[in-house]
């Protein structure tokens, strides 16, 4: 364990089975798809995938399958017909925690490229309104292309930074799948180098705190807010949630996820977090065979 690359070495105290975790980082994660019943009956989609030689394995999460194919998933007939969306299994978790209902007004604050926003639309039976927002124009292109390919009608795409989102508290639910360091995606290459490491020196925790507080202000009283990242770093996770709990009248809610999880941390590197941070949920890649994730389910008191 001495050769764990930075920054992962500092997490080995709290990751369950750290040796297994480090060993798993040299394996590729299996691909998954979400099927899209807005476009065709589930039976037809599964039949077509079978015709195209795709071997599917159930995941226990509605519409999500592990998909093994000799062909690139994006070249399949089912893909071009808008029947499937290739997506990490763990990406389902924030949307399931958000639990959107038909007819509601929902905001996905950092929506591009649209995996979670379109999953929200599916859970709402393409009714109500999903506002799929992003602050970068070039990312909006992919988001819009996916919404069109999946045939979704209930989504409004907006280009707003957090500083110019509307005032008031219009939304029933808000998802903040925040920009993060992406450590849950890290793999270790043949020369012990980290693959998928993001470059840049942005102060991510400051951005994440700003986004979460703004998102909280946009939720109706009693409404639901989900904060998620695909990183392991507590400074981008529990520390951000702790900041919100100090700033606003927010309360964490318990949740039983459909994949193996660990509770949130209440301490990291000598810093203590609100004890309710244990209600956050951590997902480690060696336990779920998908991208590592973190999420917090928050209600506006």
């Amino acid at each position: 364990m001495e050769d764990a690359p930075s920054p992962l070495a500092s997490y080995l105290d709290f990751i369950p089975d750290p040796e297994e975790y480090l060993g798993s980082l040299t394996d590729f994660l299996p691909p998954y798809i979400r099927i899209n019943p807005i476009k065709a009956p589930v039976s037809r989609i599964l039949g077509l995938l079978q015709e195209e030689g795709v071997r599917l394995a159930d995941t226990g999460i509605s519409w999500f399958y592990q998909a093994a194919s000799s062909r690139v998933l994006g070249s399949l007939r089912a893909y071009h017909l808008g029947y499937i969306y290739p997506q990490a299994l763990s990406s389902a978790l924030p949307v399931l925690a958000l639990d959107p209902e038909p007819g509601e007004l929902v905001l996905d604050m950092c929506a591009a490229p649209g995996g979670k926003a379109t999953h929200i639309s599916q859970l709402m039976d393409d009714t109500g309104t999903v506002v799929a927002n992003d602050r970068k124009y070039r990312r909006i292109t992919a988001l819009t292309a996916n919404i069109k390919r999946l045939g979704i009608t209930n989504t409004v795409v907006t280009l707003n930074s957090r500083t110019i989102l509307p005032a008031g508290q219009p939304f029933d639910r808000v998802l903040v799948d925040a920009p993060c360091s992406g450590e849950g995606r890290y793999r270790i290459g043949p020369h012990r180098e980290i693959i998928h490491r993001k470059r840049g020196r942005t102060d991510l925790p400051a951005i994440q705190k700003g986004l979460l507080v703004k998102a909280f202000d946009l939720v109706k009283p009693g409404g639901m807010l989900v904060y998620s990242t695909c990183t392991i770093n507590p400074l981008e996770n529990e520390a951000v949630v702790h900041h919100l709990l100090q700033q606003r009248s927010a309360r964490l809610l318990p949740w039983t996820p459909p994949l193996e999880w660990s509770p949130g941390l209440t301490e990291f590197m000598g810093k203590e977090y609100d004890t309710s941070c244990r209600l956050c949920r951590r997902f480690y890649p060696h336990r779920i065979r998908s991208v590592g994730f973190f999420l917090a389910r928050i209600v506006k008191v």
Partner: protein
Amino acid sequence: MLRSDTREEIIGYWEERFGVPARTFDPYLLMASSRTVYLVRENPGLELLKTMRIQNAGLPFIRKVAGYLKPTTFAVQRFGAWAGKCIANLSISDLSRLCRDGEIKLEKDFSPGYVILRTDGDTWGCSLFLSPDRLLCRLPKNLRKAIMQMA
């Protein structure tokens, strides 16, 4: 938002040309940009979004091309399953040939205009039928390329 007579014209086109019942579109608003009409799920919450910088809303539904109404590929893929007429049922190899050559012979008694392309019950989009027996590909370039690689 479209005027009600324009809405009736567009919905009437889908019903008359393809047999898609007009009531299919009751839960939706039609919103227009300069060239394209979008289909947006109706919801009172939309009113609250007026102050936001909206890039686009809903699904591109129909365009006016050279004075004619042309349903978009995305709308035909989504609502083509409700169509009962003007449907060209092709094999995947014929669809691929249409994409590669840009035109194939199709012996049908359709009136000239757009027809829906289906293979094995899957709806791909629409193309232009011209008498006698000519089917001209009108699928988007990226989809044509993908279909050619499938066959």
